């Protein structure tokens, strides 16, 4: 299939209060175009799912948003709540995180030799201000921040249901727990937008149900917008407010789960067209 045959849709249509704007973004690796003039927007508070066949550019999109890759063209803008819009194009990953976007990884990337507690705390305390000298001298501002971070860390471990695993090494946790721990670490940085890269990959059905509930809780109770990449259609269809379908780096369909399921271009992309 050549690129000219790919139908294009406007995946930004109908978004009135965007939290994230991806505008005409193109990312190439040498001669390979990974993302091709992609435009999409996410409404504040919604769970937006990005689906598509392997190699459609989903993870590349995440890496562009979080500053790991730098796209050749286009712009990516974060609209923080009550703040000025911020371009993410030249920001380093840590800066993007500070602006309010946290992420998890397709192939879980936790700090394996640290405990679950420490993993979450690293995320939480990345916002603290006390420097190394305050820590060495044990100054009051450092102690105060430590107490606050400890409380927040425990809160988050409770939130994802890992309280009783707090002191276990990350590497010793079960797969579903690892996924939840990674979400807790990401939430520790108090994001406005949470990027989840295949959070249910490799989990068993009961873990999958727990994750679905957790993601819904993140969206409803914390009010965090969620951008989700997932292959598990049942999970996507039950969670997503809206779905964008990518193929060959472009959006080929966008809409509610019901609309997308009925879309001919989507069926063609997944099953192949005659």
């Amino acid at each position, binding site marked *: 299939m050549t690129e000219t045959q790919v139908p294009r849709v406007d995946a930004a249509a109908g978004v009135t209060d965007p939290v994230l704007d991806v505008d005409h973004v193109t990312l190439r690796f040498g001669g390979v175009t990974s993302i091709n003039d992609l435009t999409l927007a996410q409404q504040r508070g919604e769970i937006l799912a990005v689906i598509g066949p392997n190699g459609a550019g989903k993870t590349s999109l995440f890496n562009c948003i979080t500053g790991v890759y730098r796209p050749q063209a286009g712009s990516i803008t974060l609209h923080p709540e009550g703040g000025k819009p911020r371009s993410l194009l030249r920001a380093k990953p840590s800066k993007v995180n500070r602006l309010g976007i946290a992420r998890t990884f397709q192939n879980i990337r936790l*700090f394996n030799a*640290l405990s679950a507690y420490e993993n979450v705390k690293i995320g939480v305390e990345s916002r603290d201000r006390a*420097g190394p000298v305050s820590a060495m001298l*044990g100054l009051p501002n450092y102690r105060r921040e*430590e107490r606050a971070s400890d409380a927040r860390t425990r809160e988050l471990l409770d939130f994802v249901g890992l309280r009783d695993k707090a002191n276990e*090494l990350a*590497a010793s946790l079960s797969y579903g727990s690892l996924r939840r721990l990674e979400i807790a670490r*990401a939430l520790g940085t108090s994001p406005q937008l949470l990027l989840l890269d295949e959070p249910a990959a490799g989990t068993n059905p009961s873990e999958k149900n727990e994750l679905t509930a957790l993601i819904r809780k993140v969206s409803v109770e914390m009010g965090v917008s969620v951008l989700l990449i997932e292959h598990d259609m049942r999970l996507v269809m039950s969670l997503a407010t809206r779905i964008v379908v990518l193929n060959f780096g472009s959006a080929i369909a966008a809409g509610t789960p019901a609309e997308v399921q009925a879309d001919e271009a989507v069926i063609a992309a997944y099953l192949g067209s005659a």
Partner: protein
Amino acid sequence: MSADALGAVGGRARLPGGLTRAYAIATGTDAKRLYSSLVLGLVLALMTGPAGSVTAPTSGIHHALLAPRVFGFLAFGLVVWLLLTFSGRVGPRLRGVRQRVAAPARAVTAHRTVRWSWYAVLLAALILVPRLLTGAYQQLLVDQIGIYVLLALGLNIVIGFAGLLDLGYIAFFAVGAYTTAYFTGSLPAKPPFEVTPFLCFPLGVLFAMLAGVILGAPTLRLRGDYLAIVTLGFGEIIYDVANNLKQTGGPQGVAKTVPHFVFGDYHWKLANLPYWYLLLGILVAVVIGVSRLENSRTGRAWTAIREDEVAAEASGIPALRYKVMAFAFGASTSGFAGVLFASKNGFFDPGVFTEQISILILVLVIFGGMGSIWGTIVGAAVLQFLPGYFRISGSSVFQPQDIYIYVGFLLIIMMIFRPQGLIPSRRRAREIGMAEAGIGSADALAAPGSAP
């Protein structure tokens, strides 16, 4: 098996059978290992022996294998064999004992009073015992042990905590030393104002830290091997500059003696004890500061970067800033040691700041246990004490100039049996254990993929 088998041979001494058994033992794995261990001892004896001369080319070999000397090395070979042969058999049993003892032991040591009284006893010993030593040992304590423990503690921040391989660490020591020489007017280049050596501490630390930041900011974007090579180059540059510049006195070293510390009317001169107490004070401060740092946000951020830089960045940790910070901390510790060294010794030349010393400090850290504060201290103290001891006691078996042969050998043995070091840090030991089990990489040095 060998001991039992030997007994059995003696017991049922029917000749042909016994001979076959003896033959089997003499050609068995254990025996072969014994032969190679003994040969290893002999090779070491030869390598570390005196050189031959034109008139008597074999005298080197002859003297190397002379009576008291060679037995030392054979004993060494025997110890290696015992280690190789029995560590596998004794190890599990020892581990069982250790596990049984560990819980009650920890209950005792974890108790605050016990721990603090242990620190108090240690400190009292460090204050009192040097008074009883002879001058030669006092000098060893300050020049070889104290300063190097301080250097190793600084490098431990860089390599143990942040996981950055710095092969030019001695350069910051040189910066501290030359800063002192410059500001006390001891270099051919004269400073705008002269200060007393004590005031050189802030200056030396500041300049070393600046050097760390200047080197770190552009180069810490590199990973693993590349960073190591750049730091190697930096160390060489500082050495070459010091060696070739007229302003530094070139290879002749400083122009006139760097003044010793002055405290009111009291001049420290060449006495060792005041320097030792100064060093001890600094070491205590550094140990307290660094252990707090390790368990703070900064220490965890370093661990995070070391384990997975991509994930650390994604969790809001600006990796570059933290790496530069680690470099600056390490460099300032090194600079501090440099000031002390310059003022204590009075005279120095660039030969003190060679690459070899950088490697030696690295070895001290690896030997003691990367990332472990107590490991670094004990490792550095032991490795620095031994050559000094052999020099002072005039041993004919071990000659101090051969230290690198032994150190190299020790490192190989360590890497096989105890890669985590003498007293490993808990985090590091876990990482190594996981790397052996195939989970993740042990080190940021191994440079995990830069992007997912």
